[in-house]
């Protein structure tokens, strides 16, 4: 089917405005193929159903809207206190000097453009593969664009229990940077890996991560987006889970004029678990969208989606979450909750929770709510001497607790909690 003229023009212009890596071995072919797919699909437009609540214009435009570098020197960089292997990118370019030595017991870490020159490499069979699978039943053109034009990325293979987390730190130094990163992760049978991500990355950031979690493997992902206000980011996680595997992803977002985080997860082995959670806090010019698609395609799998947003001062939160249970995926246990706490009248939350079930022996539940601080609880706290502002913060953190509880590691959960607390405290002055 031919694209509408305007969409075709926008797509041609976007592609023309980008440069690909040169001489990047097998990556050349994979990227050329993605460009072909992108031409056929077209860039996202305001009228696309999947972009009903979020305007993709600034994520899809030829040039990024400039974004001032945000000073966060009033607090220590997040995860600083946690023993981890640092992988640093500056405006989307890997910085070897700022990064740790990329070697660690239990894992192999390489740079995408380096492995592309190795003809026989597992990464070749993953690059763009899960992303392509994730294009069905809805188009995700910004992910195709990522596959086509990623200029950097990290390739991680865990063969055992990784000694410490791998931490991707995305620094932002240029007001007009437009970064496209593509990471590949393979957690081999029985292996365990934790990936941390943090930092504003660029004026505009398009990031994709394809994650293959093999049988009985565990993958943990904790991401901290914020506190910069002008950032525009679109991220995609594509994951495929094997038998008895565990996938856990948590994202904290503080501020950001435009953020869309998509996750597309397929449970393909029996007895697998996928948990995906988010705690987002927005004040003022804030638009935050979580778009999740979980497919159950095996027996006795469990999935949880827990998304909480605290919105004030005109901030907008969006949640689109779907659980698809395929025929034969019996004994599926699916749970989805999306909630917003509106701290004033002009904040808004738009939610589209969906269930599509083709198996008969499943237990799926979903719920979505939007509400204000509970007056009764607030009075109770104040009657015990807790000042109104502090009481509101306590109740706000209580609201977020169910999402934070999804983080398995206690030290990391504490770090996230302290950032959320600090965000609230700063707003109380």
């Amino acid at each position, binding site marked *: 089917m031919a694209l509408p003229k305007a969409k075709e023009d926008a797509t041609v212009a976007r592609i023309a405005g980008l440069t690909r890596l040169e001489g990047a071995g097998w990556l050349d072919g994979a990227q050329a193929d993605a460009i072909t797919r992108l031409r056929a699909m077209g860039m996202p437009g305001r009228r696309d159903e999947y972009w009903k609540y979020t305007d993709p214009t600034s994520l899809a435009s030829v040039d990024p809207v400039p974004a001032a570098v945000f000073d966060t020197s009033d607090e220590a960089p997040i995860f600083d206190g946690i023993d981890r292997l640092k992988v640093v990118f500056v405006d989307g370019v890997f910085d070897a000097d700022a990064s740790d030595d990329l070697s660690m017991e239990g894992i192999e870490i390489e740079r995408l453009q380096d492995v592309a020159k190795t003809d026989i490499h597992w990464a070749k069979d993953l690059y763009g593969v899960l992303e392509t699978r994730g294009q069905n039943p809805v188009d995700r053109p910004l992910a195709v664009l990522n596959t086509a034009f990623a200029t950097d990325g990290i390739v991680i293979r865990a063969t055992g229990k990784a000694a410490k987390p791998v931490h991707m730190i995305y620094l932002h130094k240029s007001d007009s940077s437009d970064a496209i990163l593509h990471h590949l992760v393979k957690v081999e049978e029985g292996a365990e890996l934790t990936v941390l991500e943090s930092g504003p990355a660029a004026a505009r950031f398009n990031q994709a991560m394809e994650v293959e979690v093999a049988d009985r493997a565990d993958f943990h992902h904790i991401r901290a987006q914020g506190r910069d206000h002008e950032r525009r980011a679109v991220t995609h996680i594509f994951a495929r889970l094997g038998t008895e595997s565990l996938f856990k992803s948590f994202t904290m977002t503080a501020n950001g004029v435009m953020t869309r985080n998509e996750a597309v997860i397929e449970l393909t082995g029996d007895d697998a678990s996928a948990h995906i959670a988010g705690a987002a806090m927005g004040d003022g010019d804030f638009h935050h969208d979580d778009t999740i698609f979980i497919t159950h395609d095996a027996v006795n799998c469990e999935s949880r989606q827990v998304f909480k947003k605290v919105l004030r001062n005109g901030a907008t939160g969006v949640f689109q979450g779907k659980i698809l249970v395929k025929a034969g995926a019996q004994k599926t246990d699916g749970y989805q909750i999306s909630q917003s706490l509106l701290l004033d009248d002009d904040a808004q939350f738009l939610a589209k929770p969906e269930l599509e079930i083709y198996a008969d022996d499943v237990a799926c539940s979903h719920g979505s709510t939007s509400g204000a601080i509970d007056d009764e609880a607030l*009075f109770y706290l*104040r*009657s*015990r001497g807790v000042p109104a502002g502090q009481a509101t913060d306590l109740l706000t953190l209580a609201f977020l607790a169910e999402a934070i509880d999804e983080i398995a590691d206690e030290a990391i959960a504490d770090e996230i909690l302290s950032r959320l607390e600090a965000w609230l405290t700063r707003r109380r002055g």
Partner: protein
Amino acid sequence: MLEIKNLHVKLEEEDKQILKGVDLTVEAGKVHAIMGPNGSGKSTLSYVLSGRDGYEVTAGSATLDGEDLLEQEPEERAAAGLFLAFQYPVEIPGVGNMTFLRTAVNAQRKARGEEEMSAADFLKLVRAKAKDLKIDADMLKRPVNTGFSGGEKKRNEILQMAMLEPKMCILDETDSGLDVDAMKLVSEGVNALRDENRAFLVITHYQRLLNHIKPDVVHIMANGRIVKTGGPELALEVEENGYADILAEVA
């Protein structure tokens, strides 16, 4: 200590007068009880004193040690020494009981310009007080009142009172929902706090509680007013004959 004069209160949202001229003085060191039919305004009085939204004071005053209570925020009243044990304690999922208690204790200390209590001191104190009230470690860890039984909630109110050491304690039907043993525990908790610088206003429907917590004065509230005041014998009279005689007498 607590002085209420001609207090008139209506609902903010509705044209409904609930308190119609309450006069009540509670002296330091004393225990006063309020009894009265359902809907007579007892809880409303306790809420208005502690600063809950939704009420409008149309006339009268209430002071604590001479300070105007009605002008203050709820947290200021608490820091000034006012405490209300709720008739229906509120469940707060997501806020740990311990965190809540510690935040409250330290917020009050801070408001009074005192030093905050250290984590270690706090823990020691809360454990000791919880033990007296047979509140186990699990209840301390759980979210505030969430999933607590009726009796557990009431004991948790008394624990908060014991930790906060207020000078004016209002207990709104703290006895309802308590079994016989819990009633004894709670009464002992209250009696342990009795001293010459502290006063209690105990709202109850039953004489039984007053056997444990011996009141100095008993008031009968009806239709938004204190209609009769007497000694402990007044509570016995209510227990025997109900309110009909008293109401007829004052009508």
